[in-house]
């Protein structure tokens, strides 16, 4: 049981590093830092575990696997909470409704997202990043998937079918 304390310590370090990075440096793409910290801490846990409990039996190997899985899951949960709650769509809606009483009206809320330009607030944040990341091509006012975008789209469509998710995208 004491072996489970290793991931607990690593999770604390992950949170501290992630918080300090975002708070102090405002990186453009925090997930790269989150991923880097999570992987480094997995290596650190593996090294510490093997030094403390050499792998001699299946139980020892299983303990290491369990520690690594729990640790990575906790890191992923923090990372996902950061993106989906603090930065995501539903979290942003609740933030706006809580802080701007004038938006507590369905039409006004929708208009605040639609904006006045060609792109609404949702697409304006995403499309430039997707173009820069090589996922889509945006030429002559037309959007096209690039090869790695096709792979991702096919995988997503397969998930829709395998897990009966409808069309995803947060739309029920």
């Amino acid at each position, binding site marked *: 049981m004491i072996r489970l304390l290793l991931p607990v310590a690593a999770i604390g370090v992950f949170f501290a590093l992630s*918080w300090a990075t975002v708070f102090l440096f405002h990186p453009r793409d925090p997930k790269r830092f989150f991923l880097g910290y999570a992987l480094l801490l997995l290596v650190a846990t593996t090294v510490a575990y093997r030094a403390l409990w050499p792998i001699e039996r*299946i139980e020892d190997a299983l303990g290491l696997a369990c520690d690594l899985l729990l640790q990575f899951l906790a890191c992923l949960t923090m990372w996902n909470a950061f993106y989906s709650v603090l930065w995501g769509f539903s979290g942003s809606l609740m933030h706006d409704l809580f802080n701007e009483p004038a938006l507590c009206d369905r039409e006004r809320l929708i208009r605040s997202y639609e904006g006045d330009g060609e792109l609404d607030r949702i697409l304006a944040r995403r499309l430039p990043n997707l173009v820069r990341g090589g996922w889509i091509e945006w030429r002559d006012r037309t959007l096209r998937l690039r090869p790695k975008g096709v792979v991702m789209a096919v995988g*997503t469509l397969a998930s829709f079918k395998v897990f009966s998710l409808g069309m995803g*995208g947060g*739309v029920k």
Partner: protein
Amino acid sequence: MLVRVAFAIITLFAAQALLVAIVSAIRPRGNVYLTIIVVSLATAPFAAFADRLLFGRVLDGDGRLFLALSHLALGGFLFHFMTLPDRSVTLRIFVELLLAPNRELSVGELAGRYGVRTMIGSRLAQLQDGRCLTIASDGAIVLLPRGRSFGRAVTAGRRLFRITSAN
């Protein structure tokens, strides 16, 4: 030894994913996240006692505990994985482009298939189902106690991380 453990982990994950897919196919309107939690918790005892099947011998108490916890963690990964196709706006945009004629759309056509009005309408309906808010027939939105707590938590979290702009 590590290869056998890796094989056991892959087997446990595949078994859970398969069960979730079967349950979701039987109950397509059910909540997939609830399905994952129920499947993971309900099958954890079986995972703990699958030691002979997975390793060819009986494990000690700690070994079985690690096996059950690993199984639950794998359920957690499946939960996180599911948020990608189910919730991601970006992935839905990719799918809309994939399904479009010649795999291309103008911004206006994309907005017609999956636009802000659809997205916000659906999210508000989900927040209403989750008792975070109510929407009157004239469109007035009232935050309920749960919604105010949610809004307060997001506001505090953004302050904690000094996030000034988001979606």
